[in-house]
């Protein structure tokens, strides 16, 4: 049951620590510099520009593999976050980064198809994912990435994921 009178700082700290428990335990995300912005339950993945992300030094343009990694990460975190939300808000399970012995298990990618729509500029990139369908074992997730302009997509992807059991 939602508690209407629950103090705001407690709600925010519960949600933020659950999110950092998902993201914080993955070395590769820290190496790429990926972080997440949260507004209520809406997540936006952020990839701050860095020289090591460049794939074409002449243009210059972001590496296609970086774009793929960014989309895949946004999809995985969104899926894990969506799955966790109900339990978290009803107070059943609250993963907490500070209390964590081992990080929560993340969904495993079965396949991902990335559609490259523009070459990536040497600037920050953003991504939002949407869980199209999530069953008990499999999920289908759609994800879009952009840079300066939300309507001008850098890339989009559809991925299928295996949901961790137990």
């Amino acid at each position, binding site marked *: 049951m939602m508690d209407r009178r629950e103090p705001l700082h407690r709600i925010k700290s519960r949600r933020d620590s659950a999110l950092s428990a998902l993201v914080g*335990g*993955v*070395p*590769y*995300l*820290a*190496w*790429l510099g990926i972080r997440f912005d949260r507004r209520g339950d809406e997540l936006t993945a952020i990839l701050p520009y860095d*020289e*090591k*992300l*460049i*794939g*074409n*030094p002449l243009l210059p343009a972001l*590496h*296609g*593999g*970086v774009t*793929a*990694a*960014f989309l*895949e*990460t946004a999809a995985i975190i969104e899926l894990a976050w969506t799955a966790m939300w109900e339990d978290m808000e009803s107070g059943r399970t609250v993963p907490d980064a500070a209390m964590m012995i*081992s*990080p929560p*298990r*993340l969904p*495993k*990618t*079965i*396949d*991902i*198809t*990335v*559609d*490259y729509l523009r*070459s990536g500029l040497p600037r920050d990139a953003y991504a939002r994912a949407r869980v199209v369908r999530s069953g008990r074992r499999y999920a289908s997730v759609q994800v879009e990435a952009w840079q300066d302009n939300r309507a001008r997509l850098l890339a989009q992807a559809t991925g299928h994921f295996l949901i961790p059991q137990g």
Partner: protein
Amino acid sequence: MTEDGKAMDSDQTRIAQQFIEAIPHARALGMRVDALGAGSATISMPWAEHLVGDPRSGVVHGGVVSALMDTCCGAAVMAHPSGPASTATIDLRIDYMRGATKGQRITARAECYHITRSVAFVRAVALDENTDNPVAAATGAFTVER
């Protein structure tokens, strides 16, 4: 293959290695060109702690495999005998069959199996040291600039 053929082959591989090292992200991942043929490429990279996507098993993140496959596919297009001036990824699908074993080198092999004036079709496979059991497979379409 003749001695001359071998010399030319290693020369081409050396040029490809320089090409790879000019790509900041490929350099950051420690990629190495192992072989280059007519429309084919083999590129490998070492396992590293900071590339791990699953701390429980030490398996590298799928994105690392994507970056290696994408680079290797692009190299296969560039190595096509029709001599494309440049290439970019249109789309890339990756199937992950299993996690790459912790501590083992990952090797991608790509083949440009068809090319038109403006599009190259490529498939690739990623392996760790257990070469009988692929880690991932990819298929993609790439632009061809003439």
